[in-house]
């Protein structure tokens, strides 16, 4: 094994033993690239030195944790996905008296609020409970705040329109200086909670699980773990929404789901 790869393995082991965050089964190319960029930006000479520092310097580890978790997201990212949710999935959810939605790996919350807006416009929000989870507490508290840079609103408005938005997007936030604050009402039915797809288990029976662009960072083994967790958490006929380049095709639970929307990664758990 290359010495560099040994250093990475040991460093990830150290993070797990010391802080409980388990990156050992993540896709390594991305982890390696991010670790080396952090190394270059620091005074440290090697990953071994970095390992030593993160063991004794919690503040240093916390900045590294932000490096290792990818938090790039948008409101109504992939508008056609949201349009498909609106036209193909909502009519089925509508038949339930109460709806539970889990946004796993919610990052800074953009997708959570997109979902809340969509449910609201379709008249389902009042009987929905949304669980928004992430393993990274710093990013989770950002999600809870629901304050986004005002510069992003142009892009989000355009996404919202393409996603079949029924109102004016500016109804959903208050602009203040360079920030846009999400309307309070969109938070009332959302519970933000710390949950790690690598180490934690089932916490409720869901009608819809949305986990977009999270599995791409996992290796096959970890992908199977997360997908099995989703499968267990969904009620019969529940929906699983993944990122546009993600798939359950080659996973252990491929047979438990059927793809219900052509061209979108929206599965339904078989009855």
């Amino acid at each position, binding site marked *: 094994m290359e010495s560099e790869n040994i250093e990475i393995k040991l460093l990830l082991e150290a993070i797990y033993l010391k802080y409980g965050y388990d990156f050992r089964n993540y*896709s*390594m*190319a*991305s982890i390696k*690239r*991010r670790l080396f960029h952090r190394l270059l930006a620091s005074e440290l000479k090697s990953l071994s030195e970095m390992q030593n520092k993160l063991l004794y310097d919690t503040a240093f580890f916390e900045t590294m944790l932000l490096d290792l978790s990818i938090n*790039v997201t948008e409101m109504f990212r992939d508008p056609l996905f949201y349009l498909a949710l609106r036209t193909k999935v909502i009519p089925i959810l509508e038949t339930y008296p109460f709806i539970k939605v889990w946004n796993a790996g919610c990052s800074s919350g953009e997708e959570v609020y997109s979902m809340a807006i969509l449910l609201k416009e379709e008249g389902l929000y009042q009987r929905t409970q949304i669980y928004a989870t992430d393993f990274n507490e710093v990013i989770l508290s950002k999600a809870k705040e629901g304050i986004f840079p005002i510069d992003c609103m142009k892009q989000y408005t355009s996404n919202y329109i393409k996603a079949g938005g029924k109102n004016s997007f500016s109804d959903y936030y208050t602009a203040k200086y360079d920030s846009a604050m999400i309307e309070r009402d969109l938070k009332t039915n959302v519970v933000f909670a710390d949950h790690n797809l690598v180490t934690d288990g089932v916490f409720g029976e869901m009608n819809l699980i949305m986990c977009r*662009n999270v599995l*791409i960072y996992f290796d096959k083994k970890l992908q199977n773990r997360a997908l099995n967790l989703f499968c267990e958490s969904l009620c019969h006929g529940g929906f699983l929404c993944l990122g546009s*380049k993600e798939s359950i095709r080659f996973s252990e639970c491929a047979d438990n789901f059927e793809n219900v929307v052509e061209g979108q990664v929206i599965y339904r758990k078989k009855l």
Partner: protein
Amino acid sequence: MRKLELDNKYEAVVIGASVGGIEALRVIFAFLPAAFKQTIIVVLHLSPQSSGLAQILSRKFRMIIKEAEEKEKIKGGVVYTAPPNYHLMIEDDKTFSLSVSEQVNYARPSIDVLFETAADVYRESLIGIILTGGNKDGSQGLKKIKELGGLAIVQDPDTAEGDSMPRNAIAVSEVDHILTLDKIGLLLSGWLRQ
């Protein structure tokens, strides 16, 4: 003049292009055989809404051109393209992985991201090619390919629609060949037909 040839130790070529890239790739691909045993991987800067390079190119050429899929095993005889709006990376076991992490050099997919991860895996059996483009993406990746023993080729900036990408690449690393598009096509063609 001595005829340029590529050693058959090379297993794969990674190609990066930006502005004017589709036309440049068309010129190069016109020289290439339909069947070969090596691997070609391409990153082109495209708008996130684009249908993707594979769709654009596969109408015109007979070789297998497909968008790289998450965890897909890399095979010989295939031209893989990066999906729009995702970084494309290569894992140690020669599978692809995708990422939506921050743009690198204002781009996603970024050429640097593919080149750096490809260099780590293919080392001295990798060829990196930088084509036309209006920024500096790819320079660091090409440098890494050179550092790990691979071969660096850059389109002659005087013949490129966007000359800053090739110029930056040449400024940053000791490139092996600076060539026009048809020379690059011929060189790859000879190598793929070995």
